[in-house]
C-alpha cells in the first residue's frame, strides 16, 4: 500500500573542521575555475566555498554550516549539462566527485530485474563498463546475505540503456536532468530506469525513496523534515505526451521519486541511486538516404510504427547537415570516416535495429518494403553490425554537432560573444511534418544559416542556428521563441532533453504560463523555503 507521507531521517553530524573545504572567491576563481563553468559555457560563475564530500554525513554537515553562513549551494558533479545548472553564482559548491563508487548489485525478486546501486558522481561510461565486464566482488551483493554477484556474473551481458550522447555525464546529473537521448525512442528517459533514490534535503536530513512506496494523495505529499510537515501541492498543469525535460514532473497520483527526477537539483543532493539495468542485445546500425525530405519523414512514420522492427532510435540529418558533412569529406575525409555522401541526397535517416542472423532476412525484407514506399532502397542504405563499425556510425552521428561547434569557435574570433542557438523541442507524432516544414520555411525566409539533426523518432530534432554576425544572433533568438510557441501549440515541450537550467526560463513560461511556473515555485518554497539549493535553476526565486 502506498502512502503520501514520508519522514526524513537524521544523519550523524561530524565536526565541520574535519571536512576539506576551500574558502574564498579569489582562490576558487584562480585555482578551481573548472567548478565555475559547465558545458553551457555561460560565464560569470563564482563561489565563496568549495567542498569535496565523501559521505552523506559530510554533506549534511556542510549544508547545515552553509545555512548558518547564509550561503546558497550549487550541486556539481561532471558538469556536462548544457543549460548551466551546475554554474554557481555565489555561495558554496558541493562537488560530488569523490562519491563515484558502485555500491553493489541486486536482484528485484518481484520484478525479476537486476539493479545497480551507485553513488551520484559515477559516469555512465563507468557504470556500463562495470556492468558489461561484471567487475563486482562478492561482498557487493545487495543484500549481502544473497549471492547475487555470482548469479549476475553467470547471467548474460547487461547495460544501462540511457545514452544521452555525453557518456561522461554523472548518473546524479542525468537523474537531475532526466536525461535522455537517441535511444530514449525505445528505452525511455532516465526516469524509467530509476528504482530508488536517497536525497539530502535543506534540513540536512535524508529521504529514502523507493519507487512505488510514496504516491500522492489528493494532489499532495507531506514530507516531514526538520520537525515540520512540508506540504507539497502538486502543480496542476498538464505535461505534454511528447518527450519532455522542462520543469517539474507533475501528475495527480504521481510517485514521489518522480518529483526529484528531473528537478535539476532544486530540492536537494542525490547521494545514492538504484538504477535498473537491461540485457544487452546486439544491434545493427543503418543509414538510409533520401532525395527529398518528404520521403524521409514518410519513412520515419512507417518504421517507427513497425511492430516487428522496433528500432532503438531514429535519427535525422537535413540537407544542410549533409552539406556540412560532404564539405568536410572533401577537406578531411578521415574526420567523417565514411564513404562519400552522394550530392543528390537531401536527407539521411540513421536507425538501429536488433541484430540476429536468425531474423536478418525477415527484418531486411520489411525494411526494404518501407524504403521502397519512401522512394529509397536497400542499395542506398549503409549497414553494419560489427562493434567497431557501430562505433564508426556513432562517430558519424556526432560529427555534425562537432563541425558546427568548430564553425562557431572560428566565428567567435571575430565576434567573441557569438554562440550557436540550439533548439531542443519536441512535438506530438501527428505534427512532425508540420513542425519540420515550419522550421525550414521560417529559417529560409529569415536567411539564416542553420542545420537540423536529431531524434526524429521522438519528433525531437535540434535546430542549430549558426549566426554569421550579431544581427543573425538577434534574429535567431526571435525565431527561437517562435519555435517554442509553435512546439507548445503542437503539444510538445520547449525542452525535450536538455532541461531549463539557468538559460531557458522564458521558454518554460511559454509552455506552462506564469501560473504553472508559480506552482513549481510553491513546491520549491515548501521544501526549500530559503532557496538553498541550485538557485536559478528552472526559475528564479521571485514570483513574476
Amino acid at each position, binding site marked *: 500500500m502506498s502512502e503520501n507521507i514520508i519522514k526524513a531521517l537524521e544523519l550523524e553530524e561530524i565536526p565541520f573542521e574535519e571536512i576539506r573545504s576551500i574558502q574564498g572567491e579569489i582562490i576558487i576563481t584562480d585555482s578551481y575555475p573548472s567548478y565555475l563553468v559547465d558545458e553551457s559555457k555561460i560565464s560569470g560563475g563564482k563561489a565563496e566555498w568549495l567542498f569535496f564530500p565523501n559521505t552523506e554525513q559530510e554533506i549534511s554537515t556542510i549544508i547545515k554550516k552553509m545555512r548558518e553562513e547564509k550561503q546558497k549551494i550549487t550541486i556539481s558533479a561532471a558538469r556536462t549539462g548544457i543549460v548551466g545548472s551546475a554554474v554557481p553564482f555565489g555561495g558554496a559548491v558541493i562537488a560530488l566527485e569523490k562519491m563515484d563508487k558502485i555500491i553493489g548489485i541486486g536482484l528485484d525478486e518481484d520484478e525479476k530485474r537486476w539493479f545497480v546501486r551507485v553513488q551520484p558522481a559515477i559516469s555512465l561510461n563507468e557504470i556500463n563498463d562495470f556492468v558489461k565486464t561484471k567487475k563486482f566482488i562478492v561482498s557487493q551483493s545487495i543484500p549481502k546475505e544473497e549471492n547475487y554477484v555470482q548469479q549476475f556474473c553467470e547471467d548474460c551481458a547487461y547495460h544501462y540503456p540511457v545514452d544521452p550522447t555525453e557518456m561522461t555525464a554523472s548518473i546524479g546529473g542525468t537523474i537531475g536532468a532526466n536525461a535522455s537521448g537517441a535511444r530514449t525512442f525505445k528505452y525511455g528517459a532516465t526516469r524509467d530506469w530509476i528504482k530508488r533514490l536517497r536525497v539530502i534535503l535543506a534540513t540536512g536530513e535524508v529521504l529514502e525513496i523507493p519507487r512505488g512506496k510514496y504516491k500522492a494523495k489528493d494532489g499532495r505529499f507531506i514530507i516531514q523534515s526538520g520537525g515540520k510537515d512540508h506540504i507539497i501541492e502538486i502543480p496542476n498543469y498538464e505535461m505534454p505526451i511528447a518527450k519532455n525535460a522542462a520543469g517539474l514532473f507533475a501528475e495527480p497520483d504521481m510517485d514521489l521519486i518522480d518529483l526529484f527526477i528531473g528537478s535539476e537539483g532544486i530540492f536537494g543532493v542525490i547521494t545514492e541511486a538504484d538504477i535498473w539495468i537491461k540485457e544487452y542485445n546486439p544491434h545493427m546500425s543503418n543509414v538510409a538516404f533520401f532525395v527529398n525530405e518528404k520521403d524521409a519523414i514518410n519513412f520515419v512514420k512507417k518504421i517507427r510504427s513497425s511492430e516487428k522492427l522496433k528500432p532503438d532510435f531514429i535519427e535525422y540529418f537535413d540537407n544542410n547537415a549533409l552539406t556540412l558533412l560532404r564539405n568536410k569529406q572533401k577537406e578531411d*575525409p578521415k574526420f567523417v570516416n565514411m*564513404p562519400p555522401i552522394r550530392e543528390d541526397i537531401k536527407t539521411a535517416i540513421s536507425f538501429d535495429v536488433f541484430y540476429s542472423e536468425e531474423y536478418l*532476412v525477415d527484418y531486411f525484407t520489411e525494411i526494404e518494403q518501407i524504403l521502397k514506399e519512401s522512394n529509397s532502397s*536497400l542499395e542506398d542504405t549503409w*549497414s*553494419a553490425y560489427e*562493434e*567497431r*563499425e557501430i562505433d564508426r556510425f556513432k562517430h558519424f552521428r556526432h560529427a555534425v554537432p562537432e563541425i558546427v561547434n568548430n564553425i562557431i569557435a572560428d566565428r567567435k574570433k571575430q565576434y567573441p560573444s557569438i554562440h550557436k542557438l540550439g533548439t531542443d523541442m519536441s512535438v506530438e507524432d501527428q505534427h512532425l511534418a508540420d513542425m519540420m516544414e515550419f522550421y525550414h520555411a521560417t529559417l529560409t525566409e529569415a536567411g539564416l544559416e542553420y542545420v537540423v539533426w536529431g531524434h526524429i523518432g521522438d519528433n525531437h530534432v535540434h535546430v542549430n542556428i549558426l549566426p554569421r554576425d550579431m544581427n543573425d544572433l538577434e534574429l535567431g533568438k526571435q525565431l527561437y521563441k517562435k519555435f517554442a510557441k509553435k512546439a507548445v501549440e503542437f503539444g510538445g515541450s520547449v525542452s525535450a532533453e536538455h532541461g531549463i537550467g539557468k538559460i531557458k526560463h522564458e521558454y518554460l513560461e511559454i509552455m506552462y504560463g506564469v501560473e504553472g511556473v508559480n506552482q513549481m515555485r510553491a513546491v520549491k518554497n515548501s521544501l526549500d523555503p530559503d532557496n538553498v539549493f541550485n538557485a536559478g535553476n528552472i526559475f528564479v526565486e521571485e514570483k513574476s
Partner: protein
Amino acid sequence: MKIVVLAKQVPEADKVAVDPETGTLIREGVTSILNPYCEYALDQAAKLKVDYPELEIEVIAISMGPPQAKMALLRCLELGADKGYLLSDRKFAGSDVWATSTAIKEGVANLVPEFDLILAGKQAIDGDTAQVPAEIAEQLGVPQITYGVDVKINNKRVEVKREVETGYQILSARMPALVTMSKGNNIRRIPSMRAVLDARKKPLEVFSADDLNIDEEKIGLSASPTQVDKIFAPPSKTGGEIVDGSDPKVAARKLFEYLKVNGFLRM
C-alpha cells in the same frame, strides 16, 4: 580473372589485454572482426572489379580459423567477395606462421588453382608478424609485392604503388602474384543493406584438412618450427617521480621547481 583475398578473423585489438598470471590473451567480452588490413585487400579487389569489368574478375575470400571465422568471411562477402572458403580443422590448431602458410597455400592450390592474383593484408593486428603472406608467396612460387596502397592491372602484369619510408614506389610483377595491402588513405567502405542481405545467399564453404588432402605432418603444432613461449604486456615504465597531490599548493610548487630547474620554463 580470379583474385584470392586472404582473410583473418582477429579480436578487436584495442580491447584485448594480457592476463599477467597465465600469459594468455583475455578475450572475454571482446568481439571478433575481420582484420582491417585484410579489409583493405578486399576493398582493393572490389575496386579492381569495378575498374576492369572486361576482366570478369571473380573474388574468392579464403580464411583459416575456427568455425566462427565464418563471420569474417561473411563480411568479405558483404564487401564484394563472390565466394568464401574457410579452412577449419582441429588439425590446424597450434599452427605457427609457417604451418599456417602451408595450410593456406594448400587451400589456394586446391580450391583456386587458376588464381591470377592474391591480395592479403600486410599483417594481422593480433599477431603482427606480417610473415604469412610472404611465406605463402614463397610456397606457391609466385612473386610478391608488400605494403601496397594501390593496385592496377596491365596486360597480365600487376602494378603496385607501395609505401616506403621516403614516399612511394611503383613496382610491377607478372601474374600470378601476391600483393599485401597497407592502409594508405583508404576510408573503409560500408556495405549496403542489399549487400548484407545478398552476402547470405553467396557460397560459403568449409573445408577440413582431409578435404584438401593436406599431409597431416605439414600442419598444426607439430609442424611448427616456432612456438610462442609467453605473451606479456610490456612492463610499465618505472622510475620518475610521482608528486603527491593531496595538498595542491605544495604539489604545484614542486612541479614548478622541477620545470624551472630542468630548464623547461623561460623566466
